[in-house]
């Protein structure tokens, strides 16, 4: 027996109102200019790992990252995620991509590894870009979700059964180098993948020995929602059994979407609830889960709804297009940022990715970045490493920099002091410049600061507590 041990979710701060695009109701979630699938995976992964660590469930053996928007198409994105999550170097890692079903596929792979006695962290994250004015732009969203899977005795949700299908079909596709995916005539995909989805759902229920009427929630995710629109009637489901897919306030968040709706379901699920989760893209994966009485111990601090409720939906469409690299714009009269150096990044990996500073063992002074000689007592090599990633901090002083290069000027530059002791200069993100005040409570967040000469530069920023 194997199952989900805990989970975490992440919805970025910005929302694009569909009215701002020129039509439609509601809004879609938008990764900020300094986010990508890796940085958001880290945010969701931190939420899940925090719960895992507090439950003393042992060690994570495997990291699986699934996305259709990998920041590097060659170079393991999961390695940056592992480093930012401070996972051990001995971890096994792999990446899944190719279509949006890989989020659920990754979760099921983690469950299978759990049956083999392994504990896995599955981070799924996507930044979904559609051509301006199209349905994909309007109806998609950006978000991340993470699950820890493992042997069943501590599971918050057990797997009762599962089924899969693989279908060779030209439905949604994107060539290397293309910015936007293409889609064949919608009706064709529906007629091919509709029956495949229903068949997979029925086989999963049979495998689980669960009848449709026993299901508390049915989550139906597909590249085209009409692929799965016939399932509720075919299975005889009542409307209240069918999960809200959050089209109105999130949009479909690519590979992360099925997991995100599962997380939203688990946020309020009760022990004994049975869930059918299905994701369709070039075939279908389906799983039947049962929520256990451990559910309360596996919930993250912040629910999906909490993330949704803390956001800013005033994003201007032009700004969104600029962030996604769709709209050219007047550059500032400042040099382009330099790419970071590979050897220096490697030497400073514990700082840059894991956000570990040091603390003087002689006098207690914190150092960010880590130092060998104490700035207060000048002791040499009397430091112990300290991770500050989850430590709260506050604004000591700040300024709005209208001159610095940014896709979201002005840059909010701040000096922050950590409650545990330690200071650094860092940029504030996901903040309204007019609201920043000395003393504001902040938390750290992993970001892609910029991309210079083909190198993504990841580091940490501070944001107002969400």
């Amino acid at each position, binding site marked *: 027996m194997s199952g989900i041990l805990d989970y975490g979710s992440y919805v970025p701060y910005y929302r694009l109102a569909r009215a701002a695009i020129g039509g439609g109701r509601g809004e879609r979630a938008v990764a900020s200019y300094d986010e990508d699938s890796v940085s958001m995976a880290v945010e969701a992964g931190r939420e899940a790992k925090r719960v895992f660590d507090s439950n003393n469930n042992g060690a994570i053996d495997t990291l699986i990252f699934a996305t259709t928007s990998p920041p590097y198409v060659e170079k393991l994105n999961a390695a940056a995620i592992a480093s930012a999550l401070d996972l051990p170097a001995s971890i096994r890692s792999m990446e899944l991509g190719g279509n949006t079903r890989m989020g659920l596929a990754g979760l099921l792979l983690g469950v299978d590894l759990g049956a083999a006695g392994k504990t896995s962290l599955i981070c799924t994250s996507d930044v979904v870009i559609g051509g301006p004015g199209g349905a994909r732009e309007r109806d998609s969203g950006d978000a991340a979700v993470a699950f820890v899977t493992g042997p069943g005795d501590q599971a918050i949700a057990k797997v009762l059964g599962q089924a899969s299908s693989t279908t060779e079909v030209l439905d949604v596709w994107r060539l290397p180098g293309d910015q936007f995916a293409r889609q064949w005539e919608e009706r064709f995909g529906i007629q091919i993948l509709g029956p495949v989805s229903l068949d997979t759902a029925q086989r999963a229920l049979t495998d689980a020995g669960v009848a449709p009427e026993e299901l508390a929630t049915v989550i139906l995710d597909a590249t085209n929602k009409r692929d799965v629109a016939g399932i509720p009637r075919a299975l005889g489901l009542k409307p209240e059994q069918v999960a809200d897919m959050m089209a109105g306030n999130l949009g479909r968040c690519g590979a992360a979407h099925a997991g995100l709706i599962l997380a939203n379901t688990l946020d309020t699920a009760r022990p004994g609830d049975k869930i059918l989760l299905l994701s369709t893209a070039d075939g279908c994966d389906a799983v039947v889960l049962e929520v256990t009485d451990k559910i309360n111990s596996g919930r993250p601090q912040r629910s999906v709804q909490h993330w949704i409720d803390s956001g800013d939906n005033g994003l201007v469409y032009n700004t969104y297009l600029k962030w996604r690299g769709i709209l050219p714009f007047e550059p500032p009269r400042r040099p382009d940022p330099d790419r970071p150096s590979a050897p220096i*990044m490697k030497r400073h990996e514990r700082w840059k990715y894991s956000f570990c500073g040091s603390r003087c063992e002689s006098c207690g002074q914190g150092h960010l970045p880590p130092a060998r000689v104490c700035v207060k007592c000048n002791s040499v090599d009397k430091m112990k490493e300290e991770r500050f990633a989850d430590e709260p901090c506050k604004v000591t002083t700040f300024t709005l920099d209208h001159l610095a290069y940014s896709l979201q000027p002005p840059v909010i530059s701040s000096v922050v002091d950590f409650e545990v002791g330690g200071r650094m200069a860092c940029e504030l993100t996901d903040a309204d410049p007019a609201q920043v005040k000395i003393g504001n409570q902040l938390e750290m967040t992993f970001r892609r600061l910029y991309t210079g000469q083909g190198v993504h530069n990841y580091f940490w920023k501070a944001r107002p507590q969400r």
Partner: protein
Amino acid sequence: MASNGIKDQVAIVGMGCTAFGEHWDRDASDMLIEAATSAYESAGVDQDDVDAYWLGTFGSGISGMLFSEALKTNNKPVTRLENMCATGSEAIRNAAYAVASGAYDLVMAVGVEKLKDGGYSGLVIPGPDGDGTESSMTAPAMFSLLGPAYCEKYGVEEGELKDVLTRIAWKNHVAGAKNPKAQFRKEVSLEAINDSPRIAGMFGVFDCSGVADGSAAAILCRAEDAHKYTDHPIYLKAFSVVAGTNEGFLSGDYDFTTFQEVVASAQDAYKQAGITNPREQISMAEVHDCFTATELVLMEDMGFSERGEGWRDVMEGRFDGDGAQPVNPDGGLKSFGHPIGASGLRMMYEMWLQLRGEAGERQIDNPTTGLTHNLGGQPGRCVSFVSIVGNEVG
């Protein structure tokens, strides 16, 4: 441990300085040639009389050959040095120490910077390769951290402080208007300064120093030889440089209302020069007004004003050209412009003119002792330079 100094051992006997500004028509070498040849002329010496050179440039060239190739100095040592915005001052200090050591008889300190060829707004600081985690703050942003911290500590309203900063810019533009070599030679109204577009924090465009090209040079010899070259040498009484440890960005103790490196270097220089009351004993000062708030904080760090009282002294006109203690009588970085490697020497050039009574329209009444100051870096993390000069020995 000692910082003994070389009080009155070395004198400046000739100086040259180009106009500062946007010299689209000149290379760094052209400016070096002008500054150096006018310094030779000022001291009445030939190039071959000079034994060694110290060249300060932040980034307009590498090695001493930037100078030796431009001026065709024959088999002479030229040392290029860099210490951020204190670069030009460091050229003087190192040249002076070489003379005091007895190694050379006659030397030149020269500084140059060519900033306007890059095509960017503001100063671009080329750094070594990095890990991409360094703060991306621009220079105005760094120094704008002083404003809110000062207000908070001393209970000054933000609008009140803005008026103080505006007055500092206004004063330095008034001075620059009287200086034929300054980059900006126009008075600017308080209103225009106050309303200028925001750059960072409380700073508008007029709170920032001018980004300029320029060069300046000084000829130094032992004090006892000075009268061979001029009837009115100026005597070097103290030099101090302090390089900070970044404590301000590591320790929660630092509050962004002072430059502790400046305090330390000023104290050291005062000790070397025998100054016990800087507010009374220093006739005039050229300080590093890279931004208006910097000049305000420096008045307190130098001991010209009590802590928390600098803003009142500014508003009362104490530091005006005709005030009790003129600060930046040549217009300062604000209106003379700030070609990094040349600025420290430009400050010394104003001392040279003022102490010899040659400052024309902006001449101060009988100054005897002057102070020059540079800082490079940012509040909490900087190098600071202070020198004391005078027109009499003793």
